[in-house]
């Protein structure tokens, strides 16, 4: 098993934001995580990636316990995420945004940097080539020297995914990657995600509100409501699950 969460529980003050959450993800699986607003989906991401420390429960990755490790260590283990509200380094160029993701794979120290030793030039050259590879997959290679904040919204979303991929993760957590896109754009993005999952041999855990999108690519879906898992199963089963429909009723998401 690549990734496993056991009995994950988290309190905010007296509020149980995540209640006994369990999940298993195998290699090269795409799993969906859905639920109404405030169901605790993003909190699960924050707990896995080390931004919050869980009140109870354990997280395993490649048979190693990673519960409560800080985010940068989680990333170096091979888990990376994107954010619901885009978090790019706005004043840095598109290229620099991606090279940052390679930071922890680079070796040269402060002395080499200050003295401009050969290792500095070699690694900087390598990282640029590598970053350009990722950018070309997302059709951003014509904009590498623009500040990331100046890109249009859709490209910013793509850049964020490109940046996450550049850390060479084995598990990618996507938090509403299609938010703010229309149906056509969202579907296009999903095809891209499916393609990269195959190409890079990735597993993906996906939070998404646009149902056609999740239903289209996830092989299994977990549904959260008020922190509790109310259903797990393949998309067709989830679509007709009365509990899920009830949870979403009034939001009109299942139409």
């Amino acid at each position, binding site marked *: 098993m690549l990734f496993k969460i056991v009995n994950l529980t988290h309190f905010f003050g007296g509020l149980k934001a995540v209640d006994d959450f369990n999940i298993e993800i195998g290699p090269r699986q795409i799993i969906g995580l859905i639920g109404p607003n405030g169901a605790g989906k993003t909190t699960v991401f924050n707990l896995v990636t080390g931004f919050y420390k869980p009140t109870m429960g354990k997280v395993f990755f490649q048979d190693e316990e990673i519960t409560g490790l800080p985010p940068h260590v989680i990333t170096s283990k091979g888990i990376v995420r994107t954010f619901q509200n885009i978090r790019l380094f706005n004043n*840095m160029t598109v290229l620099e945004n991606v090279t940052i993701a390679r930071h922890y794979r680079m070796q040269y120290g402060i002395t080499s940097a200050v*003295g401009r030793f050969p290792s500095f030039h070699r690694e900087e050259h390598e990282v640029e080539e590598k970053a350009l590879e990722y950018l070309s997959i997302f059709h951003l290679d014509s904009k590498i020297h623009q500040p990331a904040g100046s890109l249009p919204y859709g490209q910013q979303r793509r850049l964020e995914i490109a940046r996450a991929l550049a850390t060479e993760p084995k598990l990618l957590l996507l938090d509403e990657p299609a938010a703010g896109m229309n149906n056509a754009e969202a579907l296009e993005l999903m095809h891209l995600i499916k393609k990269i999952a195959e190409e890079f041999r990735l597993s993906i855990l996906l939070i998404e509100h646009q149902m056609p999108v999740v239903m289209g690519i996830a092989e299994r879906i977990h549904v959260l409501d008020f922190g509790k898992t109310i259903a797990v199963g393949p998309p067709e089963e989830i679509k007709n699950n009365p509990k899920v429909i009830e949870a979403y009723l009034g939001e009109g998401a299942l139409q």
Partner: protein
Amino acid sequence: MKPTTYTILGLLAFYAVVMVTSAVGLMNDYILRVINLMMINIILGVSLNLINGYTGLFSVGHAGFMIVGGYVAGFMTTLLFGITKDTPYWEALPMFLVAILAAALVSALVGFIIGLPVLRLTDDYLAIVTIGFGEIIRVIFNFITFKKKVGNWELDIGGPRGLLGIPPLSNFTVIFLFTLFTVIFIRNFVFSRHGRACIAIRENEVAAHMMGIPITRYKVLAFVLGSTFAGIGGALLAHFIQLLHPTMGGFMKSVEYLIIVYLGGMGSISGTIVAAAALTGLSELLRPIGELRMVLYGALLVVLMLKRPGGLMGQREFPFLLPERERKIYALQNR
């Protein structure tokens, strides 16, 4: 010729002009003094920019680190090595360099001790702790006195009187070389993976953390490096103006360095150099109006933040200060 060659030639020309004019007596002592002060302020400004501008922290205690370096070096040259005005320069220089090194190390250590616990918390705390640090440094240096034998006299030095009689070891060449070293060091640091990590923390701490950057480590690193160079600047300043006073490490002096950084532009070495030179020159011109200068500084800081938060240069650099690759990108962007 490559643009880097022009930069080197320009620097050599500057050095040669100052040396020759002062040797033949064309250079006014007063102007040379102002040039030296400008360069010391460039060291302090650029190092503070690494902390406040590039890494996005808010240290208000730069003068505190400066004076720690000044006192360490000053105590060493006067008390430990017993250098006086009459010591031949070539004999005193190696000891002076050792004293500067010690000043840098002690400032770095103090920066580490302060930075490590505080930088794990939200950024507001650094501001208050560094202000507090400046004040406590004042209290400590007010308190520490030493006895020194000069001939048959036993003198108290240090304490509220300050440290007097520091030998004038900082000459133009020494200051020039250290300024060059500081600017090149910090420029090369900033344009490397380490500098990128610092800037990423400023831009978006959460995303930087997720991209695998150990944020606390880099915040502490930037803070310690900045403090180290502040210590060097302090050592040079002490041996230039030949006295130190506990109040020089306080809040007021730190604000002057803040103004250099924010006037020049957060995250611009070029801006800091321009602002340090301009403000040093201006404060000499404004000397007749004395304290009103301080009133204006306060107002300037407010107006800058309200009307021009990017300062003079924003985050841009003069092309001649950029490494080759960045210069090409700069040319592409501005075509």
